[in-house]
């Protein structure tokens, strides 16, 4: 097989696979969900830091 640079094809407009890529979540939007996961981590790290400082 020749060693050529390749990239997997992107589905053309109207292709169901392409539509699925853009599908919205059943609640909120993707950015909102990502922010919730990241915010939960920040809260957890802050809570554990507080616990550590209290009992240091």
């Amino acid at each position, binding site marked *: 097989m020749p060693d050529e640079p390749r990239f997997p094809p*992107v589905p053309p407009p109207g292709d169901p696979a392409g539509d699925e890529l853009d599908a919205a979540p059943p609640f909120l939007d993707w950015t909102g969900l990502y922010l919730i996961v990241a915010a939960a981590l920040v809260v957890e790290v802050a809570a554990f830091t507080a616990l550590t400082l209290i*009992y240091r």
Partner: protein
Amino acid sequence: MSALDWLVLLGTLGVIVGYGVWKTRGRQDMAGYLRGGRQDKWHTIGLSVMATQASAITFLSTPGQAYQDGMRFVQFYFGLPLAMIVLSIVFVPRYFQLHVYTAYEFLESRFDLKTRQLTAFLFLLQRGLSAGITIYAPAIILSSVLGWPLRLTCVFMGGIVVLYTTLGGTRAVSQTQKQQMVVMLGGMVLAFIVIVARLPPNLSFRNAVHIAGSLGKLNVVDFSADPTRRYTLWSGLLGGCFLAMAYFGTDQSQVQRYLSARSIAESRLGLLFNGLLKVPMQSLILFVGTMVFVFYQFNLPPIFFNQAELARVHATAADGQMRVLEQAHAVAFEHKREEIWRLDRALARGDSAAVAAAEGSVRRAEAVSASLREQAQRVIASALPDANPKEADYVFLTFVVRNLPRGVVGLLLAVILCAAMSAVAGELSALASTTLVDIYRRSLRKQASDAHYVRAARLFTVGWGVLAILFATFASLIDNLIQAVNILGSLFYGTVLGIFLVAFFLRRVRGTAVFLAAIVSESLVVWVFLRTGVSFLWYNVIGCLAVLGLSALMSYGRPVASSR
């Protein structure tokens, strides 16, 4: 173990396995067998992803780790939620776009066959060996504490998993994992409630937490920048994020879980669900261990939790020495308990000067107890050179069997067996898929019927299952190999992740460049492992960045890849 415990244990396992087999009965085509017919919803995906990662050791060792070292291990999981976000944005759409069965298929469409088969081979090597350890590790502890025959335990656990994984394929794995994860989470919540209820009635929960904190069990976050320290905030966030990206994004045992989602959205939601729940779940398990520690501040703990090894020492010439240490340990315990009650009374009065003084006394008393336990370990090591001097794995199970009520013991054993079975099922299913798709169908039998490939996949599942059981059955003879396998996994993840990130982001890079970069990077990781004291979480960062950097360097000035 009581009849009620056996009933709860076997009933829980029987219902879950029966449900999985019943739910996936009937004929299946290859897509159905390997990807579950893409029917799963996000909660099934999320629980299934969590169950695949949670092995029995998670529930056996983690509370023991908190008992001995506090809750700092939770930092290991801090990078995981970030990795779930990256996977949802970058990895999932690409896998779904190409309708792949395995992660490694993607690499051939982007690079070439040799890169695909290199990563598939590394997966088969590492997962094939670790499947046996996933069975063996809990079996050795269960057999030691409960007196179950080791080989029979391995064959029983492995045999059930092989049965339902072979019959129902990926869908049976996901369906059973969902139920198993519910049992695991419910069991740990119940364990926490029962343990707290077993603390002295006149001790408030708040004071129990304070006692744990005073003895260093709540020192969770370590801000040290020292790369040789195993768990720090930075290694957890950065190294843990790279490790989680590698494990969840490139290890087929995980990729297969979210490829069975009915849509990209369900797949992403499942991963985010995992990202949201993982840190709280691990915190709960560690906190259970912390409460077991508090319990043993009021109830005399054994001087060494591996009771089978302790009994062996008593049968040697070191018996007298050990008895003296046990007596001293009991006296030190009584003194420490008095000091802890003094601390409790000072806390109740709100007298901060008395609290500080009592905390100092409690810490000194704990240092005396710890010193006696260390002496006991040295006696064990010298009397029995083949004994395992580490007892963390035995703390939780010994506590459960000795102190929890009938029925709850059976449920917690079901938690441990569910964890072992869910992890092994995920591994066997992924091993069979990779062998079929990346080796057999790609290189050995390209044009065959769907029914032929399903039969072959079933055969590969049985084959890998039998190998895993055999490995587990004879693992006690090859202890060094077990350590080697555990190290092997952490050595390859960073490099494999680097290959995938190059595929996604560096469009100039060709197959040969990334292949060579991977080999050089892997050599670098092995050198870091052999020659430096750098903690293993950083290997993932080093391997991944080396592949990215070297690939970019070798491809500088080349044309950008175009869509095919």
